[in-house]
């Protein structure tokens, strides 16, 4: 199995270069916000380990909101972020990037502060400007871009073939149908029109690190449990105090802002989401936030790694990143469906989860006991998440037209090709997927 990893390179934009940078990034797009996969700056489609990528210019448009807490807003310089989700190791991928898209990347990063096009070692610079997420979510750990393409082709091929044979064979002759489908796959593989590559061996160092993480986090929590238990009442008390006193900012985002964001949306069945804001002031909120993200990361890595994040099955990748010395948080996700349905799904299915994390950020609607209300205050929530959303200048998805549910179904179809079903009910189930 090839595990997924993630990268994020961030650097402040040189003063006066913002507009040029925006124009340059826009030149990579086919339609607003959507990369041409073969664009000349970074021909994304050539990187067959790359699932998603984006360029965002992180600007603090909502930084004044923290004034409501009696805190002076910190200075923030517009920052270019380049992030992506990939198969395998991040460092080898960055090396690949630096090699194959050197001139394009240099052209882009030359708009950033400490980068000069001539004498810079691109790879070293990118590595030095990497920020790791506090929590990362992968829809299906181990599912590679290659596998996704192979399985989508398998589905298409089987679907067409099943259509052709079902009338001749009769839909009740399911064993014959299966036999014919399996021979069809063999034939297509032989002709080189289908490939079903076996999974690569799981890297040993990843296995060890994963195991240590799996055991380590609960173990440390277990060891700390007497302490955690002892502070729990104080935590609860302080939490309720803050929940009562934190200002709620019911500010409607401007239509121009929403219009700007929506220009980039709904071209494909999936969309991107980048959101940026301040962490609420005070150590209590920061530690709570960090603790919740520690748990989120653990659950994402070891529990929710098979197509669902609690009740949500529409997120491909998501990450939570602390920046500006833990004063701000950046969240990025790749999801299926329109923005409105993504948010409604979130409110109705995992409002508690949103509350747990984002109630520690400025502008979030008031929660009760950290999981109640919050997102359920529908308009306040919808306003705040849109207000804090920032445009994504360039977005790339390696498999347009496919949703996470599509990917899961295609994998099940493939599984049915490789593992013989044991009874008729299972065969029918498999046939119904095709």
């Amino acid at each position: 199995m090839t595990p997924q990893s993630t990268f994020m390179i961030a650097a402040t934009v040189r003063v006066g270069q913002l507009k040029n940078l925006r124009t340059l990034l826009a030149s990579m797009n086919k339609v607003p916000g959507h990369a041409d996969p073969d664009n000349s700056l970074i021909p994304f489609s050539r990187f067959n380990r790359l699932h998603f990528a984006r360029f965002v210019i992180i600007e603090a448009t909502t930084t004044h909101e923290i004034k409501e807490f009696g805190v002076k807003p910190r200075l923030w310089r517009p920052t270019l972020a380049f992030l992506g989700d990939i198969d395998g190791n991040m460092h080898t991928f960055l090396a690949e990037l630096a090699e194959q898209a050197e001139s394009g990347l240099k052209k882009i990063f030359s708009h950033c502060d400490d980068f000069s096009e001539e004498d810079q070692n691109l790879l070293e610079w990118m590595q030095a400007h990497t920020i790791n997420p506090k929590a990362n979510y992968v829809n299906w750990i181990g599912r590679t871009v290659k596998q996704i393409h192979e399985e989508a082709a398998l589905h298409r091929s089987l679907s067409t073939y099943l259509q052709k044979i079902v009338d001749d064979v009769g839909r009740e002759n399911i064993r014959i149908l299966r036999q014919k489908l399996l021979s069809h796959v063999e034939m297509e593989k032989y002709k080189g029109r289908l490939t079903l590559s076996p999974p690569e061996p799981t890297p040993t160092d990843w296995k060890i690190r994963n195991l240590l993480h799996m055991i380590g986090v609960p173990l440390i929590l277990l060891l700390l449990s007497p302490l955690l238990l002892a502070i729990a009442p104080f935590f609860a008390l302080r939490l309720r105090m803050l929940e009562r006193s934190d200002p709620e900012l019911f500010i409607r985002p401007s239509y121009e802002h929403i219009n700007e964001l929506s220009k980039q949306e709904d071209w494909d069945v999936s969309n991107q989401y980048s959101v940026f804001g301040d962490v609420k002031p005070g150590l209590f909120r920061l530690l709570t936030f960090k603790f919740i993200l520690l748990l989120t990361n653990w659950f994402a890595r070891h529990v929710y790694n098979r197509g669902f994040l609690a009740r949500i099955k529409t997120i491909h990748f998501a990450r939570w990143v602390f920046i500006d010395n833990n004063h701000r948080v950046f969240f990025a996700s790749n999801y299926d469906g329109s923005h409105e349905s993504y948010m409604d799904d979130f409110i109705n299915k995992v409002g508690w989860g949103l509350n747990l994390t984002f109630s520690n950020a400025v502008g979030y609607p008031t929660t009760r006991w950290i999981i109640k209300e919050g997102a359920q205050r529908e308009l306040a929530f919808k306003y705040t998440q849109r207000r804090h959303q920032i445009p994504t200048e360039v977005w790339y998805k390696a498999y347009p037209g496919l949703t996470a549910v599509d990917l899961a179904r295609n994998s099940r179809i493939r599984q049915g090709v490789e593992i013989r079903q044991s009874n008729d009910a299972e065969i029918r189930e498999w046939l119904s997927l095709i």
Partner: protein
Amino acid sequence: MKKSNDFEFDDLQGLLRFGYGKLTDSCFMLLNIANVEAAKQWLKTAPISNAVTMDSPPDTALQIAFSVHGLRILGIGESIISDFSDEFIYGMTRNENCSRRLGDIGRNTPERWEWGNDSVTTMPHILLLLYAKKGKLEAWRKTVEDERFSQAFQLLRQLPTSDSGRFEPFGFDDSISQPTIDWTYRQSTDPHERDRYSNLLAVGEMVLGYPNEYGQYTARPLVDPKKDHLATDLPDAEDDLTLKDFARNGTYLVLRELSQDVPGFWQFLDKASDSKPKKREQLAASMVGRERNGTPLIAEHIPGILRKDHGNHFTYDLDAKGNHCPISAHVRRANPRTSDLPGNITDVGIIGFIRRLAKILGFGQKPEEDLVASSRFHRLLRRGRSYGNVLAPEEAIKPDIPAAKHGLQFICLVANISRQFEFVQNAWIANSKFNGLHEEPDPLLGNREPLMSGEGTDHFNRPDPSGPMRKTCHLPQFVAVHGGGYFFMPGLRALKYISALPANGGNSSS
């Protein structure tokens, strides 16, 4: 708890409570205001019907709604306008993203619309809905269109309607699925008490100024009576008693003029079913999700519900795979009838709690389960009327059938255009990936435009217990959009406020 007769039905336009089914004749007019003062004078005495029940149903009814341009021209200030939702202010064709989401691309593209596509010239100011008993419409129209009316308004377009009873032009009973508004607050909106699908819906989902299914008040224009003396007679804002509620007892009205290719529909189905009438009928029923007489394709009924109410009292819980009613069937998409949590938890106590927790955390689900939940937040109160003569399938399949116009003046009333109408139209109807499907938008309403990736959207699949799905491919477009718009249908006190606005506008600056 309030009693039914406590509700301010006398301030509500009747359409929020009645479909006026007995008033079979109707006339929908798109009007522009030619003379603002005359229009206000006419509004002052206009016989707009309220929602109070009468001992004998009336012979006529009149309802009115305004576009944002209409409100502006009548002198409603920007301080009120800007508190309406973006969808209402900027309209159904507000940007290309909106058109993409609503499926208004290809043949449905707003550039091809006959009205409503250009906010200045083709978007009417007022929508007037006239209803009357058979044969009484002409007289009613004369009464409504008095001298002042002709001075005040200019008819931009009269939307055709016809009396086809409960049936829409394809021949299906279209009057069954409606939410029941919970006028008396019988039902809690707390998610903990809403595990099962319910047809009862909080008033605030349809009427502005009341708590919605989240227990919240939808944002709307509230007015400070100290700054605007005219507002004194407006209803109080329940959530802020120092303010008056301009929108209370009002609602948003969504109108879409749809044409239906009735011969095209039946001819395609006839070909797809080898010209066998029974097969054709079955295929049509599975596309709609009901038989032509309205019987749902789901046999099971909810315990405790009378059989006679079966038409609107069922869920798809026992047909998860869609073997009885395909997942893509029109009525299953338009209202998936899902509860907040999938399945029912019957256990109580600690076991019940653990099961509930496991569900909330997403464990123990099948891959296709729980993709669409919480239907209660996406309901529409439908009030449309069809147009064109009823055409039986046997007639429609004849190759020499003369061309005739058929369609639907789709109307729905909602308190939140974005979460209700636009969500349903986008995520459930136009989306070819609805509920785990692919290549399948709504079989009736889909525009068949391929995705950016090239993947088609012209399939309709019927899951089959034998295993392989029964696929119908290359569906043509059956329904096209010819116009549309968002309107605000005010309560009667707000209407009085509008009609009393001083000349030259500036209501809130006084």
